[in-house]
């Protein structure tokens, strides 16, 4: 076994040293009745060649020839080759949480850079070292808001990603905190009048998608203002962070907390995970922030360096009084996003965002030419819902051609017959004009 360095001789010598007769004897502290007396019922060992064949077979059973026209929380983006080759450096991916800063400065400086990127993109002051994903980041934001305000009602736009809202509901099941959903209007933006009614002195947070699940750039400034007026914390949620290269930063529009996922940078799709959730806040909230955070300091010789800090918030110190129970986060994905953002840089990010905006317009026009119209009239970035008649039928039909057509909104809103025809589609830098044309023709038939 190539991963097991022990020779028979080593085992003998080591057993002798520890005074055990056999490897079995090492487990004598486990009561015999609790020991497994049979081999595990698993397929027999495979060598690397067989492994490769088996996994190639599995991978080939996923249709990925064309970039999918699906976004809905996971966005098909090009990840430059340099990102992955740097990630593959063993010093990065085989290290763990930088508990020993002197030999973890690589991870730590990269995390500090990640935190800075998150802060810059969100227009907020502080960010943590990553969360599991966007949905759990949003749930943590709600919990933090409840702690900060000492209130127990979370107001959330119905146009926030439905799965995020489900995760929020799961997370709040134990706390008894209340969730109030505010509907969207015909243009796909939050109904501000309904929001105004929903927000009051019991509201801890107001959560709005930016862009929202329908692809619409929601009325974040107005929603944030309403929240603030009621003493609630305005929270923005972003799944498609490329949008932040074109739109104003949520922090600049009044959000005090911005959460979401940086999946669009460096992660690729990976069937939904992993990617790095992000969590950005106003500085004042920092002692209530969940998760790890990296800070700058000096070493004994006065040289700048980085450490994990403010750990008294965390479970390993504070235990049941911690701000969250998170331990392992999504470090490598944060690094991936950091490398990708570093490559793009200021100008590249803006270009990428404008290109995505442009491609979505090509998609809209191509589908328009095929007689298919957008479902919502609000402003969009690179994703929008189209009215296609029977969305599931379109998806099934295009699947046969190897094209992933989009996400039928009825999957999340099965009880709303008006959404039967709504197909949520994205176009990014990966969708060439030719592919977009092909897609539009195929939707049409």
């Amino acid at each position, binding site marked *: 076994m190539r*991963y097991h360095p*022990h020779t028979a001789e080593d085992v003998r010598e*080591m057993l002798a040293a520890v005074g055990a007769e056999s*490897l079995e004897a090492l*487990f004598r*502290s486990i009561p015999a009745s*609790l020991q497994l007396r049979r*081999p595990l*019922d*698993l*397929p*027999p*060992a495979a060598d690397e060649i067989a*492994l490769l064949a088996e996994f190639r077979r*599995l991978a080939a*059973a996923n249709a990925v020839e064309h970039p999918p026209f*699906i976004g809905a*929380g996971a966005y098909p983006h090009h990840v430059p080759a340099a990102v992955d080759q740097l990630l593959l450096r*063993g*010093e990065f*991916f*085989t*290290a763990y949480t930088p508990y*020993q800063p002197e030999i973890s*400065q690589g*991870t730590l400086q*990269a995390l*500090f*850079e990640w935190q*800075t990127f998150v*802060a810059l993109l969100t227009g907020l002051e502080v960010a943590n070292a990553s969360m599991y994903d966007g949905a759990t980041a949003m749930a943590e934001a709600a919990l933090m808001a409840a702690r900060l305000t000492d209130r127990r009602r979370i107001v959330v736009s119905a146009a926030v*990603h439905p799965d995020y809202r489900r*995760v929020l509901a799961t997370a709040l099941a*134990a706390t008894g905190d209340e969730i109030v959903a505010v509907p969207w209007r015909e243009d796909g933006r939050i109904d501000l009048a309904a929001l105004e009614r929903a927000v009051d002195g019991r509201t801890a947070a107001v959560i709005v998608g930016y862009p929202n699940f329908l692809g619409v750039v929601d009325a974040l400034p107005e929603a944030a203002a309403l929240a603030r007026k009621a003493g609630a914390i305005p929270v923005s949620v972003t799944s498609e962070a490329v949008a932040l*290269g074109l*739109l104003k930063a949520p922090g600049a529009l009044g959000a005090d907390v911005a959460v979401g996922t940086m999946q669009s940078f460096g992660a690729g*799709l*990976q*069937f939904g*995970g992993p990617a790095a959730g992000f969590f950005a806040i106003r500085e004042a909230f920092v002692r209530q922030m969940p998760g790890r955070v990296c*800070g700058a*300091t*000096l070493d004994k010789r006065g040289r700048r360096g980085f450490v994990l800090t*403010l750990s008294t918030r*965390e*479970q*390993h110190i504070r235990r*049941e009084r911690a701000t969250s*129970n998170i*331990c392992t*986060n999504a470090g*490598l994905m944060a*690094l991936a996003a950091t490398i990708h953002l570093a*490559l793009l*840089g*200021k100008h*590249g*990010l803006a270009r990428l965002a404008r*290109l995505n905006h442009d491609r979505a*317009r090509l998609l809209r026009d191509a589908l328009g030419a095929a007689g298919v119209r957008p479902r919502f009239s609000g402003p969009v970035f690179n994703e929008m819902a189209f009215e296609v008649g029977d969305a599931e039928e379109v998806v099934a039909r295009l699947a046969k051609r190897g094209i992933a057509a989009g996400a039928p909104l009825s999957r999340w809103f099965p009880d709303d017959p008006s959404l039967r025809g709504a197909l949520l589609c994205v176009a990014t830098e990966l969708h060439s004009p030719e592919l977009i044309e092909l897609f539009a023709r195929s939707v049409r038939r």
Partner: protein
Amino acid sequence: MANPTGWKPSVERQAGGGEGSDVGAGGATRGLAFEEPLLFEHPPSTRSGASLPEPSGRHDPARDIPPELLGGEVEGMPALSELDVVRHFTHLSAWNHGIDTGFYPLGSCTMKYNPKSSEALARLPGFAMAHPLLPAEMCQGALELMWRLERALSEISGFAATTLAPAAGAHGELTGVMMIRAFHVARGNARKKILVPDTAHGTNPATAARNGYQTVEVKSGPDGRLHPEAVRAAMDEDVAAIMITNPNTLGIFETHIAEIAAVLHEKGGLVYGDGANLNALVGVARPGDMGFDVMQFNLHKTFATPHGGGGPGSGPVAVKEPLVPFLPLPVVAKEGAAWRLVSEPRERPQSIGRVREFHGNMGMFVRAWAFIRELGPDGLRRCSELAVLNASYVREKLRDVFHLPYDTDSLHEVVFTDKLQAASDVTTMDVAKRLIDHGFHPPTVYFPLVVHGAIMIEPTESESKETLDRFVAGMRAIAEEARTDAEGLKASPRKPVRARLDEVRAARKPVLRWKPGMKVE
């Protein structure tokens, strides 16, 4: 300390080269490294490392995005060429210690070798480029893999079913305790308390609290084990569950686990297993056979998915039959020869719901399944046997120079303390930092909290006897040095690009991001 273990091939008699140029027991010496400013500290410029198609030019965002929402370029972002970026991260990486660099006996974290083949497999386009919402007929390979992994984990742990969704161990704990809560709620009463042994990892009490439970600490006995009497004393009908790590964080098997489980079960409580230490048991014993009702895996520990500088992890949760209805969504179902995801609450009305976006960390599933497939049943058991052998060997070789707080059989890890060094005022932290100069990643320190000055060593099965012997030599040299040159020892580490960092300063005046003109003073 000049090469205490006769590390070859250095010829250290003439080594010289200033402080820290000697050769440590793990081969550490000094060499060329590079300072590297923050990405944001490069002068602004018009550079970019991006290579992108041109937009059509026909669609000006200003035409359809309201001006109050339309931003410009993000101020403060760097502007670098691809080569600048490559050098930046190449330099940064060189400041890190990883498993690929050297021994990494970080207790409780199971820093075993991360197979390179898994990295290649996870990058197959069919996995890397699959959208999570692909129609089922377009992602049968991904679903099949998830299903097979789920079945294998259930078999390995001895449970009925496993959810793959949770993103890490602590997330698995959260999910597990949510299911426990849902189970009790379904029986009419969520209950109020969760018992947590004093040896528990911080995530356990934090998880309990997060689920609205009050935690009740249960003291372990002088043998480092939890005793049924202590549990019984704390047990009542308000207790929803106990959270037990087995072997516990001292590396000691909870011999009384079956009896403890019975104590819980008697009063309607459930037993949660923190599976972080499963590497001691694979193929040897199954938590499901010991009375556990729920348990999370840490695929990034037991199943060798890379730790990635702090994640991503993956924390699947296995449950006994009665808890199956409460499993979170989605669930992979096999129907005939095809697989599909069950995502709708309607199909699983008792489910606790979603715990994260999409279906889990597929990237980790691919790697974990590759590990399970390559090792096979015998190989997996062998992992645990060798992991325990390695820890036992280190224990034996160091017990005369470091204090062993619990002199009883331990399994895959062993906990020492700095008690014998107290006289010379040398602490666990000093020992840890000195190990860096030898070329080893320090063990986990000051955990578990029940042990004063804990030094928790988990070698894993990946390490050879030679490596262990070098580590032992390093530790012994440090013990010796503590007696003869405590001051010198406290000046460590000398070799890395940074000396000891001032953590107090970092917390007192937090600088958590770059800003123009940022100063750290």
